[in-house]
């Protein structure tokens, strides 16, 4: 059970929950001992976002797609640069380290620019869903509409690549109360939408399916780093190195996860790639690192540690009652 004192508040005619109800409390000092394959201490995964932003999307009442009047030339072109210039650079960099990306995919890309996805599939990278377009938000969709959008995106991935879509990062991190329930019901395995932990954790969904959160990252997400937090490129490299060093050290007790979420339109610039390269060199110079994809981490955790974590959470939750 989760917390039974959820408070629903009626705000602007919508009932809102105080707690998303997706996970229970699992304190860092009470974790099952996780060992990644080959005794690795840390699972490192790199998640290139391959996105399409529309020039003239319909306006969602809850979030404007562009800050300027349409066409927002600079906003649109900044993102299109990633597709025209950035991805190939980023792929060559990841190739140097033998890192297979886990692609957070605006599935409209399969139609707009399949050339990029062909390069991804040649490299045996994972595709997971990031919605249809990154300018179509989940806010305000009915449950049926969101179910249809989620299924549509998963089907596009299966049709183009033959891959089952295991993971979901909701488009532009926009959610409804049902987003994760709906994705689990559609056959998904893991969500990247929660930032509560440095290990995978079980996620409770209404269907009761076994489903997990795989740590993605806001703090190490290049777009948050460059656009929101105004961090310099070399400092971004330092942050990745510092996070890695800490999680590598702590992984001796119980295996940790570090994700490096990337966007070719941010990190793919010539003044930013060297710092990322330096950080990846540091990560890859360590031997107890599992370079994995999101799906591999989710499946390994589900198989070996999910049930133990559920039991630990239940024991700790008994104190609430």
């Amino acid at each position, binding site marked *: 059970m989760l*917390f039974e004192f959820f408070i629903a508040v009626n705000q602007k005619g919508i009932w809102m929950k*105080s707690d998303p109800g997706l996970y229970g409390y699992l304190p860092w000092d009470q974790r099952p001992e996780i060992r990644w394959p080959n005794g690795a201490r840390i699972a490192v995964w790199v998640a290139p976002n391959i996105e399409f932003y529309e020039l003239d999307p319909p306006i969602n009442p809850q979030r404007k797609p562009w800050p300027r009047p349409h066409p927002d030339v600079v906003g649109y072109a900044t993102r299109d640069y990633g597709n025209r210039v950035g991805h190939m650079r980023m792929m060559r960099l990841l190739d140097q380290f033998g890192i297979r990306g886990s692609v957070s995919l605006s599935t409209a890309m399969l139609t707009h620019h399949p050339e990029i996805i062909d390069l991804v599939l040649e490299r045996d990278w994972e595709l997971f869903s990031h919605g249809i377009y990154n300018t179509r938000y989940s806010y305000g969709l009915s449950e049926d509409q969101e179910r249809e959008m989620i299924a549509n995106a998963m089907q596009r991935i299966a049709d183009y690549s033959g891959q089952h879509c295991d993971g979901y990062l909701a488009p532009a991190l926009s959610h*409804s109360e049902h987003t994760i329930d709906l994705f689990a019901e559609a056959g998904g395995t893991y969500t990247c939408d929660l930032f*509560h932990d440095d290990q995978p954790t079980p996620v409770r969904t209404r269907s009761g399916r076994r489903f997990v959160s795989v740590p993605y990252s806001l703090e190490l997400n290049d777009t948050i780093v460059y656009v929101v*937090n105004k961090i310099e490129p070399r400092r971004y490299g330092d942050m990745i190195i510092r996070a890695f060093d800490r999680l590598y050290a702590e992984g001796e007790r119980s295996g940790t996860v570090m994700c490096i979420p990337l966007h070719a339109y941010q990190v793919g610039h010539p003044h930013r790639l060297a710092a990322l390269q330096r950080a990846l060199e540091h990560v890859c110079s360590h031997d107890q690192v599992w370079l994995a994809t999101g799906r591999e981490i989710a499946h390994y955790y589900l198989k070996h540690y999910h049930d133990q974590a559920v039991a630990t959470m239940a024991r700790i939750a008994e104190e609430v009652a």
Partner: protein
Amino acid sequence: MSLDDKFLRYDKLKPGMDHDRYDWSMLEQRPALNWPDDKPLALWINVSIEHFPLNPKGLGFKAPGNMTMPYPDLRHYSLRDYGNRVGIFRILEALERFDLTASFAINGEVARRYPYLVRRLAGRGEILAHGWNMDSVHAAGVDESTERQWINDTLAALADFCSDPIRGWLGPARSQSNRTPELLAEAGIHWCADWVNDELPYRFRTDHGPLTHLPLSLELEDRFVIGDNLHSETEYGDQLIDAADFLLAEAQALGHGRLLTMNLHPWVIGQPHRIGQLERVFAHLADRRSEMVNLGPSGLLAAVESS
């Protein structure tokens, strides 16, 4: 049209303050303060343990760190919750490693949600009340009954974990309405750390008796330096080290005890790329133990009383 004549009337123009809450006093003109064992510098570390609801009503105003995206803002909800699941344990380890003590300012709702955590913290340092949650900001426009309920609920939720009554308060967002000091004093609170106008404790008046105010630097707070000012984690560490060295030198030069305060947020400094900088600061402070005394708020107040 011109402004009303009141814009040219100066009713509170008099020596001292423009209110009656406390007396005017300059730090350097006060009698010398001596810390225990005649140490020139005292150190108070406080860790704020917070819960940000997914559905903030924003009464008064929204406390910093709150939800900003359309509902449900899972990214900020879960990133704040990270502090209570992961970040706090990194801080506790760092405190232990450098043999330092801290107090813990805890939202009442955290005690209801995470009793395991509050039990652990109660065994490690003094507990003070941090309001009900990060959506219960005491500010003008909030009903008196609502404010009173938040205070009482908070003290009741935390009381289960403390053997002694809770006497200290740090408001969410350090905010107060004009009546908050009275309500706190009425509820048995003896001291409060919301005002950031001094570096030593001072007397503050309420209709229900005195409420001592303790300094707890905002300008050196992790959330403020890193979150609001967007300074790097390295800079944050440098600023604390510079402050410690400056205060120590000033205390030695003037013969007046000085106090360094640190307010930490596990959801900020507990991140894996940041915690090393807190450890660097702790190492610097631990090296100065012969000149520094590490006190909790009660110890601090007792030292000031007896000085």
